[in-house]
């Protein structure tokens, strides 16, 4: 399936609403193994996206993805600002060549990996993005796939990001960035974008 401007706006509005509603929960997840700001960071990002999309009314998919990316890059900060910002920037770039959902998400994932240097199994959002992209490519992305990927970060030991500082104590906690990435993809499905 291809990603349209309209679906993208619907998708991001959904994501922004969820992230805003889950702000406290996301920050709470970030407390035992991080610095307790993931919810605040993303809520700031969500507000910035809403603001930017409202003001700029992007003309096409590329413009929309770039607007989202710039809002994230310039308003979030922290690891997640750089990562989500980079992912959407890479999706924007790729969208000039293809609008295929799986390809766009794959471009986002490649950007994430370049920026953060993490691979799967390190208890980061890569552990959600990678299986989601794989499923999208296979044409069978479901909420089940997403939820399983999120839950799978729980027993992992973090070796990248702030959670790595607590070593073995990171085991047994969900990775906050994976949970928010889970919201991102669930909201995509909810917006009617299938892959």
């Amino acid at each position, binding site marked *: 399936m291809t990603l349209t401007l309209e679906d993208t706006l619907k998708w991001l509005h959904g994501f922004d609403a969820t992230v805003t509603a889950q702000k406290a929960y996301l920050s709470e997840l970030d407390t*035992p193994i991080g610095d307790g700001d993931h919810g605040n960071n993303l809520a700031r990002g969500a507000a910035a996206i809403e603001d930017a999309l409202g003001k700029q009314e992007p003309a096409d998919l590329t413009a929309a993805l770039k607007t989202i990316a710039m809002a994230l890059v310039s308003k979030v900060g922290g690891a997640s600002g*750089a990562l989500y910002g980079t992912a959407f920037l890479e999706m924007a770039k790729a969208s000039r060549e293809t609008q295929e959902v799986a390809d766009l998400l794959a471009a986002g994932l490649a950007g994430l990996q370049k920026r953060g240097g993490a691979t799967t199994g390190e208890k980061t959002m890569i552990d959600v993005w990678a299986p989601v992209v794989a499923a999208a490519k296979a044409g069978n992305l479901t909420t089940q796939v997403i939820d399983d990927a999120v839950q799978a970060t729980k027993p992992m030991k973090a070796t990248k990001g702030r959670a790595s500082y607590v070593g073995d104590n990171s085991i047994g906690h969900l990775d906050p960035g994976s949970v928010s990435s889970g919201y991102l993809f669930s909201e995509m499905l909810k917006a009617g974008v299938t892959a």
Partner: protein
Amino acid sequence: MKKIMNDPQNIVPEMVAGLVQAYPQYVERLPETEALVRHDKASMAGKVGVISGGGSGHEPTHAGFVGAGMLSAAVAGQVFTSPTPDQLYAAIKAADHGKGVFMVIKNYSGDVMNFDMAKDMADLDDIKVKSIVVDDDIAVENSTYTQGRRGVAGTIFMHKIIGAAADQGASLDELEALAKKVMPNIKTIAVALSGATVPEVGKPGFDLADDEIEYGVGIHGEPGYRKEKLQPSKALVTELLGRLKDEFKYQAGDHFAVLINGMGATPLMEQYVFTNDALNQLAADDINVDFTKVGNYMTSLDMAGISLTLFKLEDDAWLKGLQYPVDTIAWTQK
């Protein structure tokens, strides 16, 4: 949570505005940013710019070290959140005077990525940018497979050394070489008596009982390696200095600089008591302490606690760098 503030969401811009209003002779704000550049432009001419930045909540770090002999510019992110690349990029541009810009980055994935992105932006302007990633916190296990160690109070010494060298005309490559040589010689470890409360969160990042302390905490509420009952200052020194000793494997006759850093809510009186015990122990080990600094330099909001940094002075020039004149809000010396 009891804090002197207005809307927690605006705490960083309001803080930056207060700083600039109080000390216009030191810092100027770049338009529409929380990036502050040195007021004394003449002191930067023809030299490599030095910038730093990171999440807020560590005051006087980083803006307090902007001035002749130290930083050219500093960027304040949200509380405990690395600044965004556009603001870092603005600081790079303001700090560049044709010789490039050196960035002092604390080793957090967010900081590293955002500074990287800013460098990418500066590349497009042909501004040469190099950097050091400070990772002095020995509480964290070191490994090339992980994020590695955190950057904490020792960052101040890096700012000072690099700032002094830049002021004396060192090139970007020379600064990079210097920073790389210095970095493994700076090591820090902390103990907390209470957690820090992020204004937007409203409760402490970790809780400690009324008689409990925690060794090895970070500067963002990252938990440490051990909780135990409150110990006398001498015992804290034994634990913290013991860990540093193990890391450095120091020998009688070695030369060190020492930074004793309050975490925000710890009075100077307690810091000096700890200083006394630390310096006594170092003297008993026949260590030469050539330079000492005590105070709140790399804080963690309202956390009570203290960190001990040792900087092994392998090169005489490093002591000279620490002693070199500097004129900033938080560190001034002739």
